[in-house]
């Protein structure tokens, strides 16, 4: 997996002050992160903060706090990013809960006073990044069709890239049970694929 092996080099380059390397590194994980964020956002939050916004936010924070990241294993950068995205989502949720969308924020969307603004995004519309590509959207649809615990297993182990023991800890199950859950999830996932295409 060249994604992972070259990650280490990229991290070294970033530490040496290479800004382009950071962009490249982030790009590698961009889609995984987008998928994770998509499913971790609560439905009512999805209408306020699109996945892209969280993604950008996570990106900036990751850039800002990069000095605090230490490379331990090939997957550690992804789980670090996932954690940052979680914080970003929590902050957005908090700020949304606290303040009603005030005028400044309303500027973003099209209205009588701001005819130039874009149409507000429908809450059901997948975010821009996710909507851009057919394959990604199909993946989202299929993951969406899975039962919650199956989806979690795939997200943790395939998308976030956690090892079985890590995922087991996160799910609060034994390693064996986790593997079993994943197995059934993949089976169901495959079954979803067959009738549609």
């Amino acid at each position, binding site marked *: 997996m060249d*994604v*992972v*092996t070259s990650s280490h080099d990229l991290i070294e380059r970033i530490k040496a*002050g290479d*800004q*382009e390397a950071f*962009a*490249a590194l*982030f*790009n*590698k*994980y*961009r*889609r*995984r992160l987008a998928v994770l964020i998509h499913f971790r956002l609560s439905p009512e939050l999805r209408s306020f903060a699109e996945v*892209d*916004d969280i*993604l*950008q*936010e996570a*990106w*900036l924070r990751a*850039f*800002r706090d*990069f*000095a605090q990241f230490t490379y331990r*294993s*090939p997957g550690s950068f992804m789980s670090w990013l996932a954690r940052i995205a979680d914080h*970003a989502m929590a*902050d957005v949720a908090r*700020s949304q809960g606290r303040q009603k969308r005030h005028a*400044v*924020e309303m*500027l973003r969307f099209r209205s009588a006073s*701001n005819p*130039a*603004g*874009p149409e507000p995004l429908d809450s059901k519309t997948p975010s*821009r990044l996710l909507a851009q590509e057919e*394959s990604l959207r199909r*993946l989202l649809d299929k993951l969406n069709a899975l039962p919650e615990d199956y989806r979690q297993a*795939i997200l943790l*182990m*395939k*998308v976030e*890239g*956690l*090892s*079985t023991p890590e995922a087991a800890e996160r799910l609060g199950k034994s*390693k*064996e049970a*986790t*593997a*079993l859950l*994943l*197995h*059934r999830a993949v*089976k169901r996932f*495959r079954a979803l*694929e067959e009738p549609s295409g």
Partner: protein
Amino acid sequence: MAEDSGQKRQETEEGGGREQLLADAVADYLDRQARGEAPSIESFCRTHGSLAQDLKPLLEALEVIEVTLRPEPPVVPGPHRDSQLPEFLSGHKILSEIGSGGMGCVYLAVDERLGRKVAIKVLSPCFRDNPLLRERFMQEARAMAKLRHPNIAHIYSLGPPDEAPHFVMEYLEGVPLTEAARPLTLRQKAELMHKVVLAVEFLHQHQVIHRDLKPGNILVGPELEPKVLDFGLALQTGEHATRLSSPGDVVGTPNYFSPEQAGGSSPLDVRSDVFSLGAIFYELLTGEVPFRGETFPALIQRICQDDPVLPRRLDPAIPGDLQNICLKALEKNPAERYSSVREMASDLERFLAEEPVLAVPTSYARLMAGKIDQHLRELEGWKQDHIVSEQEFDAFRRLYDRLVDREDAWIMAVRRLTLSQVTLYFGAWILVLGAALVMLFNYPHLSGTPAVLVVSAAAASTAWVGVRSWQREQRRIAIAYLLAFCLLLPVALLVGMDRIGLLTGLTRNDQTLEFFARFESFKRTTNAQLWWSVLLSLPVYFWLRRFTRASVFSLVEAVMAAVLSVVSLLRMGMLGWLDSDPGKVYFELIPFAALFFLVGMLIERFRYPADSRYFYSVAVVATFISLSGVALFHEPYADWLKRVAPRTRGQLEYLFIINAGVYLLLQFLCERLPLAQMRAVAKTFRFVIPGHVLTSLLLLGLAASDLWEKSPSSAALRHEARFFEIVLPLAASLFVFGSVPKQLKNYLATGLLFLAIGIVRLEEDLFKQRATWPLGLLVAGLLLMLAAANYSPLRMAVSRAIRRRP
């Protein structure tokens, strides 16, 4: 049936075992992937023999996810890679590329129909395929095209849908703002900034937040007319993303980002632009960007956490008002910034109209408070090492005092008393007066227990409301209530004691020594009751000081302690002395003055250094009153003076000179103590010395002249009178020049006044009707003025003459 179900169970168990094996294999495969081993599906299946058949489709399903999640092929944006210039856009011939930004690049083109140069901004090729970005780009351009402002770049037309997304705008031949500003005066810079701020205000009025204000986006033409470019483009395109993801992008340094923009933590509003304007203004004034960082993350951290170096430190010529405007815009917390660009513009207008600006940045105050103290402490050390002289130190402190004064003046100007504030204190005062009436006078229908209940209820409710308000952070209201309580407390105690009949004993069993007995209509409150009520209240005031940390309660404590001292004197029989021996009253006051000094010193040393000043004030006033009173009225002292100084002209004459000596001593002592407030006390004593000494000399001289007049033949008396006549102007001159080392203007003023008196006295006797006296004065005055005006050359000439002599 039973057999059947048993078989089924066996199958599921078997199936369960197999399923677990399969599951473990899948998990193993994923774990290997996570470790970066990247096994191929084929080879992995081969190692699992019998499972392979079931395993393969599962792994393939996972591979579908993997492929979908693989990173997009890296896009190579930017015109650098897209070196081919289009030939025509919107019918304009493209001449060259003149710049590139986050979203695209700008071409220089020529509008051949109108024969003018135009700039064409084109969306970067890597974004063109994204219909959303493309649409947004054109929407923004359409919105901007509607805005017309002399200081905003004008958009002529939008590109047709069949060409690459672009728009045609006015071509500006100018230089970036900071470059243009370099040769300008500070006033011109402020004027230029004012125009920029107004242009941004115009954008805000049209619901456009610029989000990317920087000197490079503000071009200045030869007429010093700035033009703001590139506005609105950044509004919701997520430009950080595009910007950072584009390697080699030239606009990647967010030196002018606001903290909220850099941290991305909260939605941006107009105050983000205010911050950027502050950063631009900072660079305009100082020539340096406010925040610098080696790396992007370091820069972001600086923006979010560090205070910029004060502009005046970089260039002392920058007026404080401009610094304040700049720092106010650069506040970290948006709520502390100018809340709109309009406010910033107004402050710049105030500066240009030479009026004081309103901005008082907190970062500045913070810096000041911290750094002044620190610097003064350092200076103190230098002073002790005799590297910095006393007057240099004083000069620094005075400078700082002036700074702080200005701040205070501002606070005063802002904190004007409102109707409700005045009403609050008015109400508190009336409440206290009402209670005092109950305490002082007899009311047939309100006495005894009801009176106690009424006053206690008033005291308790003020205390309760006060403490509650304090806990709810309503500090001012709380202090008003608690102050009322401070006065109500002793009143309530007095009313209570009156009811119970406590401490009714008379001072020395003498009705005439009772304070309230002197007033016919008052209740018979005894001195003892008064004394105990005040004494019992003092710890409560102390507790209030601790609870609220408001120094006003120390003031209350000091004042009530002073009252307690007076009541103590009353209990010692002061009223009797006033009639028979007033000097004793003043004499007995001296220990109280000393006591206040002691308490002040203890407080300054151990608890609230700043609060000690209230006690010192009482102590100083008591010292002045007691020493002057003793000198005037104390008979044993006068007798003693007559004995030790038989030629005395009476105690009044000596009073001043002896007291001046005492004050000199006290001043000396106070200065030696390592207490800051105490040194302020020393200043007070020093202040009165020249007046005392010179008054004394004048009075002695007058007395001597009187004696001489009575027996004109006495040579001794004549000498004595003449001696004082000459000593007075000499001493006065001494004080005049004594003002130099410690910069005491009071010495100068007092000395000059008494010099005039001395000169007149000399005229009346020694130089009576002699023209040489005024003429001599005229010449001497003129010579001294000339000498002063040529001080340095004269000094050099004198030192040269001295050197030549040996």
